[in-house]
């Protein structure tokens, strides 16, 4: 078990390194130049001044040397400074990470709160009205783009009912209720398609388990339906559910970029988008590193969850 985890972790770190190398090369090889972007196309900066700027940023060095410097800094916990504001990237990331983290965790929680009871109910009442309704809702939830669902929610809950603000962010430390209010719609919009996907897998996975012999035994000895489902069947139905959620967290992290943009939330996704638009290399690299690391971490966590849920994995 331990060596299995160690192996997974090593693979994950390798993937992460690959991603960073890819992004590092990508932002530098694609046409467009940070210096031109900073001073403006029609500015009066002389070629010599531009060269000076490039040297200041270390952009005149060979690309492998640049990567070496950046990677060396990374190992010491230094992600460089923004080319535009000169603020350390790490400081900005630390300010913005809580927003994205809150958004993702809330979305995940909302998805589970919707998906698990609905999936269980659908599986228990296979073919009946509640199953049909839940399945239809799930199909629509998967098909509708999250940014459109976000806009629908804004239309209904902000503009018509005036329950939540249509955009903007409130710090939790300043106004906890306002913070929750400002995060509710974004989290719901982001979690909606995850809820749909999770509900479908809870339903189908539970259906499969409910056909097994030991469930028939449990029913035969007179256990209540509720106890059969939650104490006996659910644990065995969990593995595919955890897999799907693990896979979907990647989409969730990607989705934060657009959702943060729509609701004006100052998170990592929007930070990355701003960095990309301004060709602020250290900002893009830092933001991408955090997102990719989060994704890789979730995948390792999923492996740990397998081991916790299923003893067979643990003793392999």
């Amino acid at each position, binding site marked *: 078990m331990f060596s299995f985890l160690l192996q997974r972790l090593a*693979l994950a770190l390798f993937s992460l390194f690959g991603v960073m190398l890819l992004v590092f090369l990508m932002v530098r090889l694609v046409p467009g130049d940070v210096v031109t972007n900073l001073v403006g196309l029609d500015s009066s900066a002389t070629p010599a001044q531009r060269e000076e700027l490039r040297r200041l940023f270390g952009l005149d060095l060979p690309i492998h040397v640049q990567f070496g410097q950046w990677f060396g800094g990374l190992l010491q916990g230094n992600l460089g400074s923004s080319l535009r504001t000169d603020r350390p990237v790490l400081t900005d990331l630390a300010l913005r990470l809580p927003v994205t983290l809150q958004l993702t965790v809330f979305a995940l929680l909302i998805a589970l709160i919707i998906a698990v009871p609905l999936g269980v109910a659908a599986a228990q009442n296979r073919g009946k009205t509640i199953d049909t309704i839940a399945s239809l809702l799930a199909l629509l939830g998967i*098909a509708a*783009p999250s940014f459109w669902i976000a*806009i629908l929610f804004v239309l209904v809950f902000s503009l018509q009912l005036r329950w939540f603000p249509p955009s903007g962010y409130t710090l939790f430390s300043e106004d906890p209720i306002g913070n929750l209010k400002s995060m509710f719609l974004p989290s719901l919009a982001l979690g909606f398609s995850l809820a749909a996907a999770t509900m479908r897998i809870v339903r189908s996975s539970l259906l499969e388990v409910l056909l097994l012999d030991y469930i028939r035994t449990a029913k035969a000895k007179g256990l209540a339906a509720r106890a059969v489902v939650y104490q006996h069947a659910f644990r065995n139905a969990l593995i595919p559910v955890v897999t799907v959620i693990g896979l979907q967290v990647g989409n969730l992290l990607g989705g934060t970029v657009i959702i943060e943009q729509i609701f004006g939330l100052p998170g990592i996704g929007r930070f990355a988008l701003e960095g*990309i638009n301004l060709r602020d290399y250290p900002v893009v690299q830092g933001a991408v590193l955090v997102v990719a690391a989060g994704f890789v971490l979730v995948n390792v966590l999923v492996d740990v969850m397998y081991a916790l849920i299923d003893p067979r994995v643990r003793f392999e």
Partner: protein
Amino acid sequence: MKQSFWKVLKHSPSILIGGVLVLTVILAALLAGVIAPYDPVTFNPVDRLQNPSFKHFLGTDIFGRDTFSRVLYGAQTSLAVAFLSVSIALLVGGIAGALAGFYRGLTDTIIMRITDILLAFPAVLLAIALLAFAGGGFWNLTLTIAVVYAAPFTRVARASVLRVREEVFVEASRALGLRSQLILLRHVLPNALSPLIVEISLRLAFAILSEASLSYLGLGPQPPAPSWGQMIADGRQLLETSPWMSLGPGLAITITVLGFNLLGDGLRDLLDPRLRKG
């Protein structure tokens, strides 16, 4: 063959409904020039920001362009990007995956490590980063989605080929002394296709969603060409007064994605021997 085709439709509502939805959208795209009541790009300021009516089914936008007509033309963009990008991804990913699964060894290791890296990264963010640096537009968008989706195809193709290459008939052809390229092309690939067909349908759905997201961020086909994501973004500012500017194209995306998803689900049930009944 013909009889079994109708039998399939009768027994699989998913394939039937999904097929009808997809066909409808394809027809809407092909016949946009005939069906659309108005020109999708010409400004018509007199009619600006109208609510839905019999004259304009989905109302008009800020330049007085008919939203329904623009949604129809938007289908052309959306489907073109989806079909082209998935074809390229299938070609590249499918070949890479087949090679990895069939030859194993170093080829496998190299191809799969690259795939792991591509998959270790949220697809949308990768696409945004690629596009933001390369610039938006139809071809860049198509190629970007193709790059992002090549990796999943590689995985599916490899898994499928791995399964088939262990079967007895492949062993038999090897024992007969056939060359390995011939075995791969003639015997392994045809039998490894069905998971790929399912994957194609589901990937088309994802591609439509990705195209919409990226167009929403302004990284898609450049205006005035109508694209669904861009239309939703345009309507975002006028949500309170003209909600149909966003609602119309969003519905179109949902219907299209739903169609491809249903088709993919239905095909999976049909092609998976474990789930096939009788």
